[in-house]
């Protein structure tokens, strides 16, 4: 088991190396608009130094004057020591900015995941138990609508209904106007209130696939021989479902939910941006539009790590949860 994990980890590191190299190449081949803008501004403010000279200085400062291969290894050696440089757009060290915004994303993601699981698993199991019933059709339609809903459209509807017409929530932002005057507990509630609509959006849009997955797995389990045996033994339907079927359904569910855990840190790019939640998604969206290479490099690498971690966790969990896999 340990050998397997170590081997997978080593492979992941190699893949990460290539992925970050590709990302670095992409970033370097883009016209570095940010540097040019800054150079132009500074040349305008200080006419003694020409635009070209500023550009050269900045390129040197940001390590853009060496060839991409060299540049990548310089970046890598810095990154391995945890130095991701200063964000051009935000003007603070990348890791500092990351540290200050990541918990908003995590809170949003965690809240959404909890509701998704709480909604998807019972509904999925029920609809598998009563296949082709009204409930089954209803959940299927609900799940597929959730999957098919364009996030930005649903967010607009939510804003329209709950923020504009009913006035229950603010249109966007993470805190209200009076936030600073509140007591710490009120401040916390204020933030929670601003999280409601984004969470609702993520739950509606994200529940569908988990629900469908639960249903499919439950159907597979219910069709299997050991369930028929359990029924043949005369066990009560409750015991068959809750004890025998449910536990077996949990195997793939645990692996897939485990695999999404790293994703809690990746932030919901569209949702955060449209609700202006200052999480990692919104922060990096702004950075990407501004051509902030250090921040974007960090964010993309971070995303790649999360993806690799996700697959690794779900594979390992699969082996942990299912004894049959462990044997082979």
């Amino acid at each position, binding site marked *: 088991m340990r050998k397997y994990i170590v081997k997978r980890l080593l492979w992941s590191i190699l893949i990460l190396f290539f*992925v970050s190299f590709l990302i670095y190449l992409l970033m370097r081949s*883009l016209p570095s608009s940010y540097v040019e803008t800054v150079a132009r501004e500074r040349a305008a403010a200080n006419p003694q130094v020409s635009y070209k000279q500023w550009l050269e200085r900045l390129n040197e400062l940001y390590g853009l004057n060496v060839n991409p291969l060299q540049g990548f290894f310089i970046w890598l050696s810095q990154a391995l020591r945890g130095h991701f440089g200063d964000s051009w757009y935000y003007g603070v060290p990348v890791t500092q900015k990351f540290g200050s915004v990541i918990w908003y994303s995590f809170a949003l993601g965690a809240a959404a995941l909890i509701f998704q699981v709480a909604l998807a698993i019972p509904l999925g199991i029920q609809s598998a138990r009563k*296949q082709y019933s009204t409930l089954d059709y209803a959940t299927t339609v609900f799940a597929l609508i959730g999957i098919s*809903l*364009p996030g*930005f*459209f649903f967010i607009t509807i939510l804003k329209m209904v709950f923020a504009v017409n009913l006035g229950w929530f603010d249109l966007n932002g993470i805190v209200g106007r009076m936030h600073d005057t509140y007591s710490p507990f009120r401040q916390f509630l204020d933030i929670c209130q601003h999280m409601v609509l984004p969470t609702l959006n993520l739950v509606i849009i994200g529940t569908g696939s988990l629900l469908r997955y639960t249903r499919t797995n439950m159907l597979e389990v219910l069709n299997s021989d050991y369930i028929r045996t359990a029924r043949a033994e005369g066990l009560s339907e409750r015991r068959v479902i809750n004890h025998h079927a449910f536990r077996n359904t949990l195997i793939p569910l645990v692996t897939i939910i485990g695999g999404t855990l790293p994703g809690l840190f990746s932030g919901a790019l569209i949702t955060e941006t449209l609700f202006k939640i200052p999480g990692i998604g919104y922060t990096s969206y702004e950075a990407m*539009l501004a*051509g902030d290479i250090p921040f974007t490099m960090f964010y993309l690498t971070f995303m790649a790590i999360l993806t690799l971690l996700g697959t690794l966790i779900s594979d390992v969990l699969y082996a942990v949860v299912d004894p049959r896999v462990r044997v082979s």
Partner: protein
Amino acid sequence: MKQDKKVKEEVSMAEDLNRPVTPSAETPESSSRRLDDEQRVKVVSPSMLVFRRFIRNRLAVTGLIFFIVMLLFSYLGGIFSPYSETQRFYKTTEMSEEFAGVTQSSTYRFITAQGQAFPTASQAKAQLAIKNGETTFTADNDTFTLDKISSEGYTISQMASVAKAETLGGSITVSSANSNELPEGLEEAFTQAVQDESESFTLGDTTYQVERDRKTYYAKTSLYIGVATMKLIDFDSADSQNSTDFTIAALQAEDTAMANGQTVTFQAEGQTYTLEYNQADDAALIYQAGQTSAYAIVSNYIVNSVQSDVHIGIDLRQQIVEAVQSGEDQLVYDNNEYDISRQNNRWTLTLQQDKTVFDAYAFPSRAHWLGTDGYGMDILTRLMYGGRVSIQISFMVVLISLILGITLGGLSGYFGGWVDFVIMRLVDIFYCLPTWPIMIIIGAVMDEMKVDSATRMNFLMLLLGVLGWSGVARMVRGQILGLRDQEFMIATEATGLTVGRRIFKHLVPNVIPQLIVMATMSMGDTILTESTLSFLGLGVKYPFASWGNIINAVSTQYVMTNYVFVWLPAGLCILITVLGFNFIGDGLRDAFDPKMKR
């Protein structure tokens, strides 16, 4: 899941056994057939079987209807729509615009002769002197003389030295007293005058006075500075320049005309003019000889155009003066309506004008069933063309990722070994590349580089396709790994088929059911991706329509709350189409894989 054809046939036989067997008329011995006789069973082709199962699924049929409706809407709609994709509509709105300001002249204005200066401070002094009825005034150590030329006109002149002569032991040197050049013959005349010690001399029409200051003599003359007048002379064309000579002549002519009530002819600068005084509006028109249209107007009113580039012609000017004088509050001229409003001594003319503007955010009407968007384009038509763009893009993207995925996945699964290893690591790498951020970055860069919309769209397709093939490759490889050791593959090897044929003719067709399901589902996904990018302004751009960029309008809160008809239909179009794809995909999966049924 092994989707071998044989398996399906067995299933179809099993299903059809349930039906009551009707003995056919042509075969009389049919009753004697054994139960497992092949003739008894109506063999249905596998695809027919899938089709039947699909048709029985209500959701799948709904999805198919959604899809067909949207397809017809997008492709036929564009043909039937009376408007084109980028046709913009206009509307006329009445806009009132300040056109001119009119004030009655209450101070004198000064027209200076060529080459002369008359600074503001001196103008104020002159103003005061005229008001007090004085004939001379001093400003800036210079003495000026005022001569009345007409009822409200004066000429201003100044005694100034023109030349000075210095006598040094009998010889006389004449030089200019100011920076101007000396008039011709002055030097001789002045020298003569100094020698004669006369007090004045005449040269041409001008009389010079000689003043002595010790050894220096100054030749002084009355220098003509300019004209001060209460009346205003405005010319028909913006290029005409006022000159002092013309002003004097015109003012004197007007006086005569005012007194006699007749037309007066006068000469100025070698031209003959006729002046016509109109008592009703207390203004006079000046005609150039031989011309029928007025050359200039003399009036008591200052008419200033508000826009710097508009010159008000004589006709309109006369009309305005007339209207203002008779206290009217409206003026119609050249089909334009002007409203006149008065504020103390100032009249303001506002022009009521019909302006053509884009018919933006028009509410749904008979002409535009769903209204118009921010650019003044018909939303229904944009939705139709947007549907084409969205469906085409997602089709191309899925096609690209299928081609890449099937080829690489097929090779990987068939060969195994190091080929498999390399390709699978490539898949891992592509799987790790974060699609969203990359699309956003490249979109932003294309914005920066001002890539044109068509290139942009092609690039978008290519990129999404290339970023999306890893899932297909994984699936194809997984399926092929299980199939390649089966008997039918050994048979292909024995018949000596080429590797390419073996992979793409015999292995890949077995994966087609899963591929179809996958392709349908990812068509929906791609529409979502594309529309989200277009919504963010990083995907399909104007002039091309896309459901996403139609909803883009909600980025301003005002549009979101007040013009729901702009974004709601586009969102519903996306939802229905994607839902259609997902319903179809779901139904197909069930139809291909009957194990899921109980």
